[in-house]
């Protein structure tokens, strides 16, 4: 089990550490982690499929403002490792991922906010000594230490946990297994609820139901929903833009004396808005 433990820990280090070293390029998301773990353990297909299920579960687990609800990398790697290496039932492995993710999030927060605080005085010290080179080195050393220690959790979990987990899962009665399988279907609800918190407003709520019905009844694939959504949003934005221009012009008319500068201003605005929309689409 030593080799498997090492490989699993390596996957965590590559995906989790790599994500933050290379600009949060989303290689820490279960979709990608599942694929990498599948590749490393020689069952790409299972890895990708588990990654898809776990992505839905952890959709709302986002590291925003340093507050993390569940840590997806460790959860995905352990669930995929158990499924591929130990032949644990995939549904049961998915259910295991959630408590692992919550626990790992606690450890990750402790590392980043408490343990790494030890380096805070050094930041001030090097700044005072005018040594940007030392800050650069420390920046990378801190990265390495944090993610190295973090991947040790996975190493020991696989090394020590594999046998008990296998035994436990093999002895699960059928109806409990059905319940565990159902968790995989229901847990994404929490993730979507977290994302809705970020975007929801009373005026925009109907669009959530529109998206739901497009798939539940019309059974559109997600590419079609995204494309329709972009068209709809563009049409609405053009209309909003027109309204805004009228409002701004009205304001301008009210402040007649300064209208000379006002006109040039609105000219610039149109240009920057155009850029905004170009960038957005």
């Amino acid at each position, binding site marked *: 089990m030593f080799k498997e433990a090492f490989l699993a820990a390596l996957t965590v280090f590559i995906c989790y550490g790599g994500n*933050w070293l290379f*600009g949060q390029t989303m290689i820490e*998301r279960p*979709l*990608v982690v599942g694929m990498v773990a599948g590749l490393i353990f020689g069952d790409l297909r299972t890895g*990708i499929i588990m990654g898809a299920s776990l*992505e*839905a579960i952890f*959709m709302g687990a986002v590291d925003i*403002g*340093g507050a993390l*609800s*569940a840590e997806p990398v460790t959860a995905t790697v352990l669930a995929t490792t158990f499924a591929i290496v130990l032949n644990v039932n995939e549904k049961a492995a998915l259910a295991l991922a959630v*408590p692992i993710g*919550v626990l790992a999030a606690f450890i990750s927060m402790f590392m980043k*906010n408490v343990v790494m*605080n030890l*380096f*805070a005085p050094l*930041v001030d010290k090097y*700044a005072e000594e005018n040594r*940007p080179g030392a800050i650069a080195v420390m*920046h*990378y050393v801190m990265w390495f230490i944090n993610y190295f220690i973090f991947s040790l959790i996975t190493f020991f979990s696989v090394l020590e946990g594999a046998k008990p987990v296998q035994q436990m899962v093999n002895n699960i009665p059928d109806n*409990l297994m*059905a*319940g*565990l399988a*159902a*968790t995989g*279907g*229901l847990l994404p*609800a*929490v993730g*979507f*609820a*977290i*994302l*809705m*918190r970020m975007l*929801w407003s009373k005026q*925009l709520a109907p*669009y*959530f139901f529109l*998206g*739901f*019905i497009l*798939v539940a009844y019309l059974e559109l694939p*997600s590419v079609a*929903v*995204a494309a329709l*959504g972009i068209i*709809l*949003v563009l049409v*609405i934005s053009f209309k909003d833009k027109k309204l805004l221009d009228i409002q701004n012009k009205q304001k301008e008319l009210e402040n007649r004396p300064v209208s000379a500068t006002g006109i040039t201003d609105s000219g610039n*605005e149109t240009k920057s*808005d155009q850029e*905004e929309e170009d*960038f*957005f689409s």
Partner: protein
Amino acid sequence: MKLTQDMTKEDKKMLNGIFWRSFTVFASRAGATKAHAPGFMYSITPALNRYYKDDPEGRKEALMRHTTWYNITQNVGTFVMGLVASMEKKNSEEADFDSESIVALKTSLMGPLSGIGDSIFWGVLRVIAAGVGISLASQGSILGPILFLLIYNVPSILTRYYLTYMGFSLGSTFIERIYANGSMAILNKAASTLGLIMIGSMTASMVKFESKLSVPIAGGKPILIQTYLDQLFKGLVPLSITLVCYWLLSKKVNVNWILLGVLILAIILGLLGVV
């Protein structure tokens, strides 16, 4: 883009340096009090080295003022890096420049920029990318993760690049203006609308519930409860559970409790033979 038109070779070299270094901005985290200050200092080092070349005291002061707490959604944070570079330039040229204003402006932009950055990149772009990725990956196709990475990263890296230049050349008045004239509100509304459509569609395709319960009919086939539920409204249970989770979150219930609650609910339903 016309942004680079009146920039010197030196300017471009410095801004490209900031752009590349900015990828590592969140690699380290120096505790809760400084957060990503080391990454920020590392990213703007090309600017400091250039403008305080013959002024070690000036560079030292610049480094010291940037040891404070820093955290902005990283794809839009480069705007602030470019902006700080242009302000450090002014500071190095004008003797009576108020250097405190650099940190003040940097700090005041964190909230608004992260707000819009998080909702566009985390709430919308990532959700669209994941929606497309999951639907392909659940059939075992390697295109799933690959498309997911492309859909997210191409716009996000382009944004990171152009905002570095925009921060340097347009400055803080640009942000104030698009907030004041209402363009930001339109962008925000557009992003939230698209995000909600995608989340709604994924609630329908990914939150799954199927009941095994059935009503026995004398002399005929038993009728599955699930058929009734589907006739009432397709996806009624997943939709209700998602809305209940949302309601609990808006009542400030801790996410982890809700996660555990759903886990336990599903297990109990399993034990009772409902699913």
